[in-house]
């Protein structure tokens, strides 16, 4: 039978993969994608906690996940818009290149 630990370990694994990507990759888009992976891992963890919680009728985990998805969507929209703008300025989206705050 699947226990809560299975889900949490899977979620942490996914989180770690996302973290690895966010730390390692140079391409800003991939960094954003990695952050989305981390978001999703967190959502998975939350929903799993809800499923295994003693008070599922409060729907806290589900609510958190829904709000998390919403915020992730907003974040993705703004982040990718920023990437496009940065590309227009630098003609590159290497995160290593973006070191100063001056445009």
């Amino acid at each position, binding site marked *: 039978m699947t226990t809560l630990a299975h889900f949490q370990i899977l979620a942490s694994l996914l989180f770690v993969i996302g973290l690895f990507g966010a730390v390692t990759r140079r391409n800003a888009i991939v960094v954003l994608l990695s952050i989305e992976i981390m978001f999703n891992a967190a959502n998975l963890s939350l929903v799993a906690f809800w499923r295994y919680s003693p008070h599922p009728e409060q729907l806290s985990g589900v609510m958190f996940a829904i709000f998390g*998805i919403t915020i992730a969507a907003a974040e993705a929209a703004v982040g990718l818009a920023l990437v*496009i703008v940065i590309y227009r300025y630098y003609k590159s989206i290497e995160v290593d290149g973006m070191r100063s705050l001056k445009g």
Partner: protein
Amino acid sequence: MDTAFIILSLITVAGAVWAVTLRNLIHAVLSLVLFFFGIAGFFFYLNADFVGWVQILVYVGAVAILAIFAVMLTHNLTAEDEPGFFSLRWLTGMAIAATVGAVLWFAIRSNAAMSQTAPAGVASNVADIGRKMMTDWVVPFEVVSLLLTAAMIGAIVIAMEQISHRK
């Protein structure tokens, strides 16, 4: 552990790993879509149907498309000068990921509540979610609505090219 869990885990982990490691950005995004579907599958598996559908609608239908558009608009189909597999950068990343993973592993393992099995009859009902959202969670709901509006306007304003520059 049952079969569905194993299959979904394989899908999600594979999708995530590919998304993070593939050089070809479009392939990375498509792997990410696979990952999103896997997560949605987990949501169904956990009886959170609504979240699952929202996951597909938002991530597959919007975020992935947005990412593809970003890739297209930045003329950046492949990340050519990514460092190699055994570069210092990758090793550092792996070390950091391993450290954080170890901490999480340690935390999960040291918690007795983690070994419980799923209680029966837990399911999320859309009507309940809606009711909760309009009662207990109405403030976060409004805040998120505002945030979303602000993000939408912000994204448009940021990405809109200055017309005056062009003319």
